């Protein structure tokens, strides 16, 4: 006869993952010699929240580990135990063990009990070695065990406790029985519940709590200890605790009255005492300075994707209407035109809002690297500082998730092969500590992510030798850029390069393939002795873009607006023939190569004389090229549809779209077109 809590598991899993990530972030940044009190309180709260959730949702294994961790963290935050770097390491390991248990419950993955036990032993060893009396919780406990006795023996005191819960207690799925059970373990405990008297049954709302409890507890524990038991359920003003002399029992305090104070409050399951005031610093685990705007709701990705798809269809419908309206007289149908222009604006606003739902900060991936770098640097005996730049840069959620593996591989590579050992660095006149920089920034319609290190850089001779050995076509006359591209070739990795750090069977070819699959590009820059830089450029979003429709022959193409620099109609004197096939356009002192779309896509009937057509100057990631088109048709918002899903990848394009007249148009990819044109 219990509530089916499984419907709330996902919320617990998500919240716990966030708490674990927050704990890890703080531990990695903390200075053990001089820890910040706010940080210590934050990690304690995180551990406490996980423990409470684990107990509530019936994951006693997690509750036991987190309880042991929480006990120690409580001592540390009360300055009863000095924090040391070793303790931080063990706390990080404890976080890993809890993560493993969490994954076990969530995904059914294997939990290595030996690792969990080892972590618990280490935590208990710290507790035993601390100056305070024994701290560790019994390992066999099936529910959150009672907190440890306070460091100094307190006199036995009888407390009168009155808990008047808010009306939304039931909707928050709070159960009082475990609270009372925990209090029972603290001493001699009695509880009496009261239910508000009701005259009428009609219209009675059974979901609102109309109970209150009065308790007595005779214990050595302090008021703070008692308050902590209620941390998950009670706000400050809902809990009344007073010390009682034996003769004063049952006389002093107000009788408990069920409260209706929180009537109508929307609430979140499992909200804690410190979370009740959403705007308060620290509410919902926010750190000081963070505001209530950070609060959020969880929505399934499928729902968001469905919303985006429907939004895409709406954009197409709006384009269709706009196209139909073009044939109508603007004076006669003034109202219709005005309404359609309003529709266009509203559709655009709505589209931007909807798209922003899927955008998430790249810090979602970046945040995992401090730990990775910390652990690997220690393992490799290297000193490495990780710098994160532009963590708030936003990227489509789908891309963020797919970017994680390539970035991890690149950071591992930088650590293993790029950054030298302290001795080598000192010998080379560098600081013993190397630097890896992870940088993200939005550039036009793309997001550029960089992994840079100040290590030894790529070794040209070694790469050439290995490439030759692997049967790749190489020559000494190859430019540096061409040589660096060799490491992206499949099978380039050799046994000599493979270590347990970066040689995990995923080569740079896989990085390249993954990035290409996201519609991205990879560039590599390296300089001997000063380091390497890998630059990944990705589309900002995968769904909708602003484009210019152009006609070539009878075909219509879309060129993304952010790639277009300008359009012009050249004079015959601006055109220069280079060789038999190539033409350049002279624009303000610059000679720009002319690409003919009809040649690239074999289109018949297109204009051949540039002076009779339109030249569109486009930016192909820093390179300017001129694109010859017959006519500029108009600016549109287009919904990107994947061609690969239904057909195959079409070179030189980034997908297709459906125009207002129902016609399908290819969306051009400037960089890929330049590549295609060069090979043509």
């Amino acid at each position, binding site marked *: 006869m219990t*509530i089916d809590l499984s419907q709330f598991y996902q919320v617990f899993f998500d919240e716990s993952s966030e708490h674990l990530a927050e704990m890890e972030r703080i531990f990695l940044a903390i200075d053990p010699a001089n820890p910040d009190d706010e940080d210590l309180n934050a990690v304690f709260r995180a551990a406490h929240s996980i423990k409470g959730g684990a107990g509530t949702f019936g994951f006693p294994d997690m509750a036991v580990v987190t309880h042991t961790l929480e006990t120690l963290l409580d001592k540390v935050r009360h300055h009863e135990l000095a924090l040391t770097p070793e303790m931080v390491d063990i706390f990080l390991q404890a976080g890993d063990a809890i993560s493993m248990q969490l994954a076990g419950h969530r995904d059914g993955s294997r939990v290595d009990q030996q690792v969990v036990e080892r972590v618990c032993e280490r935590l208990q060893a710290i507790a035993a070695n601390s100056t305070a009396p024994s701290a560790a919780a019994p390992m066999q406990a099936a529910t959150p065990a009672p907190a440890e006795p306070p460091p100094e023996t307190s006199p036995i005191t009888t407390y009168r406790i009155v808990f008047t819960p808010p009306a939304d207690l039931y909707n928050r799925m709070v*159960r009082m029985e475990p609270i009372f059970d925990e209090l029972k373990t603290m001493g001699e405990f*009695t509880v009496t519940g009261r239910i508000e008297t009701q*005259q009428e049954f*009609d219209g*009675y709302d*059974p979901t609102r709590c109309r109970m209150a409890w009065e308790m007595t507890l005779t214990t050595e524990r302090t008021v703070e200890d008692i308050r902590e038991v209620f941390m998950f359920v009670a706000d400050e003003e809902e809990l009344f605790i007073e010390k009682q002399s034996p003769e004063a029992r049952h006389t002093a305090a107000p009788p408990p009255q069920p409260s209706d104070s929180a009537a109508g409050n929307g609430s979140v399951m499992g909200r804690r005492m410190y979370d009740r005031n959403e705007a308060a610093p620290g509410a919902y685990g926010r750190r000081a300075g963070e505001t209530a705007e950070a609060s959020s709701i969880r929505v399934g990705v499928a729902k968001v994707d469905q919303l985006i798809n429907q939004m895409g269809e709406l954009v197409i419908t709006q384009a269709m209407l706009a196209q139909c309206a073009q044939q109508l007289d603007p004076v006669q149908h003034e109202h219709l035109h005005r309404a359609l222009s309003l529709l266009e604006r509203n559709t655009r606003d709505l589209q931007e809002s909807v798209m922003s739902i899927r955008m998430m900060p790249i810090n979602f991936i970046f945040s995992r690297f401090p730990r990775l770098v910390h652990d690997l640097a220690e393992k490799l005996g290297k000193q490495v500082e990780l710098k994160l730049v532009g963590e708030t840069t936003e990227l489509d959620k789908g891309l963020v998730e797919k970017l994680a593996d390539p970035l991890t591989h690149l950071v591992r590579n930088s650590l293993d092969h790029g950054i030298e050992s302290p001795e080598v660095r000192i010998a080379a006149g560098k600081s013993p500590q190397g630097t890896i920089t992870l940088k993200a920034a939005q550039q036009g319609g793309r997001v550029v992510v960089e992994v840079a290190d100040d290590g030894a850089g790529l070794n040209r001779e070694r790469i050439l030798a290995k490439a030759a050995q692997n049967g790749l076509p190489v020559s000494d006359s190859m430019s540096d850029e061409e040589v660096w591209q060799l490491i992206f070739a499949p099978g380039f990795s050799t046994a000599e390069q493979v270590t347990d750090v970066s040689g995990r069977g995923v080569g740079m070819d896989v990085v390249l393939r993954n990035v290409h699959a996201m519609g991205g590009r990879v560039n590599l820059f390296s300089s001997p002795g000063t380091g390497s830089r890998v630059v990944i450029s990705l589309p900002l979003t995968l769904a909708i873009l602003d484009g210019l429709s152009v006609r070539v022959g009878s075909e219509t193409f879309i060129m993304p607006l952010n790639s277009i620099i300008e359009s012009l109609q050249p004079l015959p004197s601006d055109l220069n023939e280079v060789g038999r096939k190539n033409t350049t356009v002279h624009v303000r002192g610059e000679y720009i190569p002319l690409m003919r779309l009809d040649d690239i896509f074999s289109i018949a009937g297109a204009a051949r004389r540039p002076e009779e057509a339109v030249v569109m100057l486009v930016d192909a990631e820093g390179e300017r090229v001129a694109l010859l088109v017959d006519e500029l048709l108009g600016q549109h918002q287009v919904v990107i549809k994947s061609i690969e899903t239904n057909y195959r990848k079409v070179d030189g394009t980034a997908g297709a779209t459906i125009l207002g007249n129902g016609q399908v148009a290819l969306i051009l990819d400037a960089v890929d077109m330049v590549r295609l044109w060069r090979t043509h």
Partner: protein
Amino acid sequence: MEPQATDTTGHEHQLSGDWTIAGVVTQVDALSSSLEKLSAAQNKRLHVNCAQIRCIDMSGIQLLHVWLQCARLRGISTELVNLPETMQQLIQRLGLNEAFTDNYHDAT
């Protein structure tokens, strides 16, 4: 098929179904109409059989208490019988024995 939430037969009133926060709202209407019927009935002593209560939590206990209280205000004397073990434990763990003394003899 989900059993009826309440069902009065002679001197016995049967409670059943989900009495947790997920189900209490659906119990209210049936309880309300049964309260009207009971008020009109001659018999003012009633056994409330809890054997068919599938699951119950604090909100269900509260609802039951309020219903029993309203019945009493209408002159109906009720006695809870056949409480599932978990329901008995819940009443005890929540410190509500006293609240049910009039209706449940094992409460004290």
